[in-house]
């Protein structure tokens, strides 16, 4: 039945991997796991439709519910609002990293992964990479819709794309954190519930929708210095203009810092429990 034997002998099996091979396989395995989620997603068109509806709905609701009421912000409120909605949407989109990771832990397929010669970390890195890919589409969709409801880039295409990149980097840093939550609570329902108390204050007590200046002083202190505001400010600077460098650098530092802390924690947690 089998033409060529794939069977490995003991010596080959025991040959240690070089550092280079290890890195190469980490990338290859991450790609395979990311492919696993994306291939599964393509098979569920209804789930794609629903996950597309949420960002679109957020854009439309915030644009038309708040868009009229809040004036007095310099320039167009739509232009002011849109980067905030983008950040909020990728933040809420990260819930899927928590739920997905917790769901995976409850499935037997993880048990099989553990018995395969794959890089263990790839189960988590693959998860965050597939979430990143999904976010690319959701941000494109939101931007297109944003343009349709009056959003205009006030800087240039390059700066706008840089803002887009900043947004995706932030979404990726959140994926790690939320995957970690999923790994900690291990139950999809609990994971979903656990993310809400984090998301609500960070997205609403921020500069995403309104200028922080109207909030009480103690809240301002939080709102000014928390990552969501920093990312929003960075995106705004890149998309709407104004002083750019500091905002963007702070936003980059936050995102990279979050990845640097959360990624190892998530991977370690996974290798410990699974």
């Amino acid at each position: 039945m089998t033409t060529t034997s794939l069977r490995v002998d003991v010596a080959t099996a025991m040959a240690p991997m070089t550092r280079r091979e290890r890195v190469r396989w980490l990338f290859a395995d991450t790609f395979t796991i990311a492919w696993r989620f994306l291939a599964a997603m393509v098979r569920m068109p209804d789930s794609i439709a629903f996950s597309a509806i949420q960002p679109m709905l957020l854009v439309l609701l915030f644009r038309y519910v708040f868009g009229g009421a809040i004036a007095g912000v310099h320039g167009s409120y739509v232009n002011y609002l849109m980067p905030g909605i983008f950040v909020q949407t990728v933040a809420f989109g990260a819930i899927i990293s928590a739920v997905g990771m917790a769901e995976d832990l409850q499935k037997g397929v993880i048990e099989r992964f553990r018995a395969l010669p794959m890089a263990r970390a790839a189960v988590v890195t693959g998860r965050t990479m597939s979430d990143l890919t999904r976010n690319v589409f959701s941000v494109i969709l939101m931007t297109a819709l944003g343009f349709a409801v009056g959003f205009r880039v006030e800087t240039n295409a390059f700066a706008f794309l840089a803002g887009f990149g900043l947004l995706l980097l932030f979404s990726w840093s959140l994926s790690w954190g939320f995957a970690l939550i999923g790994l900690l609570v291990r139950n999809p329902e609990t994971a979903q519930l656990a993310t809400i108390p984090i998301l609500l204050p960070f997205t609403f007590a921020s500069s995403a929708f309104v200028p922080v200046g109207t909030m009480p002083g103690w809240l301002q202190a939080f709102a000014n210095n928390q990552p969501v505001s920093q990312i929003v400010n960075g995106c705004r600077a890149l998309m709407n203009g104004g002083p750019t460098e500091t905002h963007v650098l702070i936003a980059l530092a936050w995102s990279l810092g979050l990845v640097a802390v959360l990624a190892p924690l998530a991977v370690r947690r996974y290798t410990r429990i699974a």
Partner: protein
Amino acid sequence: MPERPAIEVRDLVKVFTKGRVRALDELSFEAAAGTILGVLGPNGAGKTTAVRILSTVIRPDAGRAAILGIDVGQDPAAVRRIIGLAGQNAAVDENLSGRQNLLMIGRLSHMGRGPARRRADELLEQFELTHAANRPLKTYSGGMRRRLDLAAALVAEPPVLFFDEPTTGLDPHTRQEMWTWTERLVRGGTTVLLTTQYLEEADRLADKVIVVDHGRVIAEGTPASLKADLGATVLLVTLEDHERATKAAALLAPIANRPPVVADSSLEINVDDGPKAGSEAMRALDGAGLAVLGLVLREPSLDDVFLRLTGHRAEGAIAEEPPITAAARAAP
């Protein structure tokens, strides 16, 4: 020089702190290359824990195990390259198609894209799944799913396979089918460790059987030798109730090879000369005024071995083993 056993297990201990369960209690056994080792035991006996340690999924608290001479604790990465895992816990991805699942496992086993694809198609054909290759697994029947499960373990053609209760929850027809597949595999020189609660399964497939209860081996041998240990014949007597059965057991103890076992209103004894023992039993019970409702003479089964060794029937459930990943996959 005798060949080194394909699977060597020495004094494995695993304690689950959660339930303070001593899942493995100095478990030791060996499996020769190219044979099927049946690991027989009730729910919670430690079978799955042993498989998870041997397949490097979890680590033992003490003891050592080696696959083809490679220590599972010292070089788990190497062990993963020579083993395949199938069964109740090692599932496949529900949302992917059969082909996608096999392709994924091939890639994660570090096969090239081309070879992984060819191997997936080959296995789909071999397990008669080609017609369903592109359908998501959710649409598979129970038998098809188990076949894919088995195929998934074989992707990288590992020389050592672990099948953890591969037929639990399957209908008799599908179970037969799985047996045929497993038998075909071993013809190719693969070593298989198969855990099961079904004595019939061990009897049919295994070259050697170990009986495990409370995390240790309580008997081992070929199915035939285990049965032979019991004596040539089993005499099953049914009485009116449990109380009478207990009285009868005391009465018949002198003619039995081992102490009689009473279950409900029946009792079982092992004897060397069946017909002679049968008539003796009838006389003795008649003399004591105990009415015999039924009397059966039969060949001992592994079930009898089990009953004898553990004092309970094989399928009587004991406490469930605590899984680390809550891998409670619903039986389809």
